[in-house]
């Protein structure tokens, strides 16, 4: 695998100066997939003919001497819960096996305009429910850095594709850490944008007040490039915001970064964090200090309630979103072929179509929303969620960004946590607060994340880019 095509900037330079063509680069990506992916299982599907056609178009433009966008010809991997018109879209669930996306998600439409090439759809935990990509109905993805370990989840296929050289960058979705934890486990960069910054039109929803689409990339600069391409208001997503982003994302001002103060919340530096991770985070803090960035200890007192709030709000919304999968309008499982009557059809499709974790969350969500329990659980959780958000609002009066570990543990062994879902849930403990508060968060390859103010992606991406430039 040529290093020239591993970052977007280098790819663009190589492509436009004709060191390689878009077709050659794509061929190289598919060669890596052929060599590795039978073992890694990052992809659920690829469409080589279509990708080839896209690459030929880009090469024609370059041959004609036309100026092409930064993302032109760049091979991207797309999580299988994001619709690419004409391609399978299953959310790694048996209940959507065989479903073909009828239209492009807004993020795909935007990337298509930029000339990006879609290599294939990546594996994930079914319906984005999980932290290891072991909950997929179709395959278990392995971590390309150590194939005995999980790649993290739920965007584990996207992370493994980028870390394994099987794509230059990828899209994932993050509801409670599903971009950042796999990025962390695979040693790459992952950005969960501010709630509303990126349109979710064409994303198969899990928990609608938490879900965001974002990039997984080899560098922070690449994350900034992809984010800039996909961000913006969309009339097809009522929750998308009219924020404007520009040059500051990809071309940060050093003096501005130096004037920043980063908060270190004491609630995130607790007993039980892996010693190696803590050492990486501490080294990262020292590196930031060498940039003259200041640090300040802060407190986010309601952090300890975040896991409870998350595991009430998320299943509630998921149980509601997943009610549409009834085996009538979408794919039908073979077991339901002889179902008798509508109730039998619903129940058979759903019972055979959904995996263990999805059923668990649907039932939990149904419980917290049910009459008699709604106030004690769902209504209460929404109020505590407001307190979690308020903690961040208070903290951001004193600091510009917040630094915490991404995961309390390094990548665990495949099969290690599948028997105990509650232990698996703890993997999300440091990532879910950014979703609950709707804030942007950037996971960096040294086990830490930077949480920013709403719509201030430029702050965390800027800090990240300077961190990258000073090297180890």
């Amino acid at each position, binding site marked *: 695998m040529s290093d020239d095509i591993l970052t977007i900037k280098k790819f663009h330079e190589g492509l436009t100066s004709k060191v390689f063509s878009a077709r050659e680069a794509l061929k190289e990506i598919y060669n890596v997939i052929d060599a590795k992916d039978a073992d890694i299982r990052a992809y659920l599907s690829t469409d080589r003919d279509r990708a080839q056609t896209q690459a030929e178009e880009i090469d024609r433009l370059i041959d004609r001497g036309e100026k092409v966008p930064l993302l032109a010809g760049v091979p991207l991997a797309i999580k299988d819960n994001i619709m690419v018109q004409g391609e399978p879209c299953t959310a790694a669930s048996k209940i959507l096996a065989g479903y073909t996306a*009828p*239209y492009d998600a807004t993020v795909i439409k935007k990337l298509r305009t930029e000339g990006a090439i879609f290599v294939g759809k990546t594996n994930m935990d079914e319906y984005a429910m999980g932290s290891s990509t072991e909950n997929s109905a179709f395959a278990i993805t392995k971590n390309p850095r150590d194939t005995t370990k999980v790649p993290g989840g739920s965007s584990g296929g996207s992370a493994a594709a980028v870390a394994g050289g099987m794509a230059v960058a990828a899209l994932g979705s993050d509801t409670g850490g599903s971009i950042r934890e796999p990025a962390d486990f695979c040693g790459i960069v992952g950005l969960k944008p501010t709630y509303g910054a990126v349109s979710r039109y064409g994303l198969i929803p899990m928990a609608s007040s938490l879900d965001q689409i974002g990039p997984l990339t080899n560098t922070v600069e690449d994350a900034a490039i992809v984010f800039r391409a996909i961000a913006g208001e969309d009339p097809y997503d009522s929750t998308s915001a009219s924020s404007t982003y520009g040059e500051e994302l990809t071309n940060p001002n050093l003096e501005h970064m130096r004037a920043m103060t980063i908060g270190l919340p004491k609630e995130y530096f607790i007993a039980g964090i892996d010693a190696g991770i803590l050492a990486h985070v501490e080294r990262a803090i020292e590196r930031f200090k060498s940039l003259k960035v200041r640090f300040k200890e802060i407190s986010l007192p309601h952090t300890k309630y975040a896991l*409870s709030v998350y595991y009430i709000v998320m299943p509630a919304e998921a149980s509601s979103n997943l009610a549409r999968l009834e085996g009538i309008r979408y794919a039908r499982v073979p077991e339901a072929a002889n179902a008798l009557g509508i109730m039998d059809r619903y129940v*058979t499709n759903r019972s055979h179509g959904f995996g263990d974790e999805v059923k668990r969350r649907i039932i939990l969500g149904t419980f917290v929303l*049910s009459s008699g329990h709604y106030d004690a659980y769902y209504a209460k959780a929404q109020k505590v969620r407001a307190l979690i958000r308020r903690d961040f609002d208070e903290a951001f009066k004193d600091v510009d960004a917040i630094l915490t570990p991404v995961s309390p543990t390094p990548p665990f062994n495949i099969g290690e946590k599948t028997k105990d879902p509650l232990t698996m849930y703890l993997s999300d403990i440091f990532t879910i607060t950014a979703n609950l508060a709707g804030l942007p968060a950037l996971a960096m390859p040294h086990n830490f994340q930077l949480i920013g103010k709403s719509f201030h992606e430029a702050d965390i991406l800027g800090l990240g880019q300077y961190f990258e430039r000073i090297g180890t």
Partner: protein
Amino acid sequence: MTITKKLLSHLAHLSRLSLTEDESDRFTHDLNALLQHFQELESIDVSTIEPMIGGTALKNTMRTDAVRLSNEMAVAPRDNDITRAFPDAHDGHLKVPTIL
């Protein structure tokens, strides 16, 4: 609050799911462990707190309320990507299995 087998079976019915004996055992155990964890929320005084309902406090982005052909429907209904995505179709319409 404890989830009994009986309550679980009711929740499964509401969820349009049928659980195996093994699933019932495991889910009863897992859900009760979670509810026990959720007890920590009981002690927080939220009497003056407004709930955070969505993920944002910003106002909704809306489309103009005007009649138009959307997406692929601009193409004839018999031959477009939306009808092609149906699990079964007849003349461009979703063919529904016998339900009665």
